[in-house]
């Protein structure tokens, strides 16, 4: 919520150019900070994996880890080299577009996670888009019929769903729609590696539905609240007095002014989804990034952990920037410096 205003304040009054191109300046500045953040994140993750006991060699060898085998594999994987040296090699590789090879199976990390990035992105975008549309729509309707039975029921249900963690939602959906009561949809999302997720739309239904159910209440509550604010404003009363039809007031007078705070919540929703897919992917066995991350952590596969975390962090940064840009674009007065 605060990011947009803060960013505007910072980016706003610095120069004449800033006043003329606040959005461009914001994008440039925040991108540079973003890259720095990514480097820091990679250092942090690398340091964290180094402090843990055990390593990829023992994770691979398990109960066949005799000292000799352990040492042979550690040497083979380059784990006996100094940590700084390992990090530097990795960083140089990344700057050349090479994310290294998996410690667990020697395959290039890019081929291991490339398809998974797409799978997760489809899940996040679908759930985010559908959740946003439903949340905004319901929020507008509830605000328009404020204090009606419809409004009260929606608000209570939204509150109740907010209290449910995603794994409960997922389990309930699976019991009802897949495994026990009716067998409409697959209980797990399995598709052959290499096939895009949209070629198996049925497999997407329950994971997307789970995420939609989890995110809709947040968008709905924010939208309802800001819509009510807008509907109580002077310009709406003016429009009503002038006899503008109610649907026009809602869509053309109130909604554009109410959407700005909701955009921040939608942005947060996408950020939440990037993390929330981990649980959902795990439960539905959906071959996405989150599932790969869980596996990579238990394998202590540092190059894969690094690559996935960087992708997630980059997504966070990109969504943050995008949210602020949209928030600026839809509220012209924020683009002006506050003097």
């Amino acid at each position: 919520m605060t990011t947009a205003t803060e960013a505007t304040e910072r980016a706003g009054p610095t120069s004449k150019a800033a006043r003329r191109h606040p959005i461009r300046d914001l994008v440039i500045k925040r991108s540079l900070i973003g890259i720095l953040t990514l480097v820091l994140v990679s250092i942090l993750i690398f340091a964290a994996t180094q402090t843990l006991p055990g390593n990829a060699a023992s994770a691979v060898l398990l109960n066949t880890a005799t000292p000799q085998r352990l040492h042979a594999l550690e040497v083979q994987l380059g784990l006996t080299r100094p940590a700084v040296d390992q990090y530097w090699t990795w960083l140089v590789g990344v700057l050349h577009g090479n994310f290294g090879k998996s410690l667990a199976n020697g395959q290039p990390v890019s081929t291991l996670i490339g398809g998974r990035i797409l799978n997760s992105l489809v899940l996040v975008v679908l759930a985010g888009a559908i959740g946003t549309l439903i949340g905004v729509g319901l929020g507008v309707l509830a605000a328009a019929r404020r204090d009606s039975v419809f409004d009260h029921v929606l608000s209570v249900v939204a509150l109740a769903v907010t209290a449910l963690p995603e794994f409960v939602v997922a389990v309930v959906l699976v019991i009802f729609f897949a495994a026990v009561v009716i067998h409409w949809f697959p209980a797990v999302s399995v598709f052959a590696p290499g096939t895009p997720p949209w070629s198996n739309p049925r497999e997407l239904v329950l994971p997307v539905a789970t995420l939609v159910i989890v995110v809709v209440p947040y968008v709905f509550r924010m939208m309802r609240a800001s819509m009510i604010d807008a509907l109580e404003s002077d310009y709406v009363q003016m429009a009503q007095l002038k006899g503008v039809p109610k649907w026009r007031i809602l869509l053309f007078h109130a909604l554009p002014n109410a959407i700005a705070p909701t955009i921040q919540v939608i942005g947060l929703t996408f950020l939440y989804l990037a993390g929330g897919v981990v649980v959902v992917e795990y439960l539905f066995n959906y071959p996405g990034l989150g599932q790969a991350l869980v596996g990579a952590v238990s394998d202590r596969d540092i190059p894969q952990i690094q690559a996935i975390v960087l992708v997630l962090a980059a997504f966070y940064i990109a969504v943050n920037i995008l949210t602020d840009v949209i928030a600026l674009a839809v509220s012209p007065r924020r683009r002006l410096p506050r003097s």
Partner: protein
Amino acid sequence: MTFSRREFLKAGLAGSLAVGGGGLLSACGTGDTIKAFTTSTAGKPRYGGTLRAGLTGGSTADTLDPVSAITNVDFSRIDNLYEPLIGLTPDAQPVYVLAEEVTPNAKATEWTIRVKQGITFHNGKTLTADDVIYTFQQILNPKTPGSAAAGLASIDLKGMTKLDAYTARIPCSTPFATLAEALAIPGYSDIIPVGYDLSAPAGTGPFKVKSFSPGTQSTFVRYDGYWQPGLPYLDEIVITDYSDQTSQVNALLAGQVDVVNLLSADVISEVQGEGKNILLSAGGGWNPFTMRVDTGTFSDVRIRQAMRLVVDRQQMLDLVFGGFGTVGNDLFGIWAPEYDHSLPQRHQDLDQARFLLKAAGAEDLRVTLVTSDIAQGTVLAAQVFAQQASGAGVTVNVDDVTVDEFYGTNYLKWQFAQDYWFYNFYLPQVSLATLPTASFNETHWDNSRYNSLYAQAIATTDTSLRTELAHEMQQLEYNEGGYIIPFFPPVIDGFGTNVGGLVPSKSGLSLGAYDFKNVWLS
């Protein structure tokens, strides 16, 4: 007495053929309850179809390389791609697979291995003695020792010779009467062709690899040139990795997969309630508690015996595996011919435990038990142990570490920890675990009488003499050893009503040791 050994192996072969032909149900140690679990409604064998397996336990570290395979789920692929010289029947008895004859000389210092003729690898190469020699060279390569290297260490690599196209002579640097048994352990000694290339893996098994994405999915297709007549039944196998039992069971119930592995006992009623089947196997795998006998608290034999006496074995099985599985007697190799069933079953005896602890001056004993989620139920078993030990006034601090820390540099050095093993024959298991030269001597057991008994046993081809020697060794372990072996865990798998030909295996591996060549879909 070379003859008797041969007969022994031949008898095993006959058993295997019966199983291969008819899908015979093996009689299991725990009896009738288990048979009730394995009734299949799939009717007579039928050709064709794709078996969809949903398996847990995989990761991106999975491999198709039989030389370095380790995990239960690795074997699901490897056991169908490759074949060993000697395999295990569902009853855990050795049986010739690729070998036609495996015979030692009188002193057990040299073995002659002859392979069957007319067997081809997936790449078209004919199986010969060269492939046997090549495989041993790969397993025992000192730079990249394979998973089976420790168990086959007695083989003299340089002395191996080819007698004719199908016969190899394998000399041993020390007497090694149990080579045949060591070769029979599932998945560890599969034969690969000379010049084996992991990027195009070729074995002699019933299925060829079509695709393999570690930790995700792999597909296998029928090998039309397979040497066993009429097998396999299936056209294709799709193995999908599952990270979690919940999604795995959901997939089975929703009909998205035909077979699932490594279930816990608490989902049995759910699976059966939804009309699916459970395959329950009395596994010979064992998940011991390991006490170091050489230093620290457990160097006092009275304390070790007290720790063995605090365990209520049946209660532990009830709590960890829903009462399935077999109660253990602190001895391994339960299906081995040398296993000593005459030693009295050890029961919980808290008074005796207190008495021993007092005698050892350790009434208020506090110990740390290092556990990890290394196999099904290990952490829970550790907690149950701590609870039971408190009955004798012993405080057990359960230290739950990550799997990679458990098997990291402290592995084989922990004072008091756990481990898991698949089934192995008695003497080969000793060579891995309870000799000073053993690679995995986690209890640091080094008993001179025991060592000399082993040296005698490994040097004789007389099975009855060997059994006698092995019984005395087990007596020593029973009275002084560092292992607590409270149970042999059950193996619980699930399968759909359309699946036929699954037979419980005593090996400790899932789904009939993943023997999919005998499986059909109705």
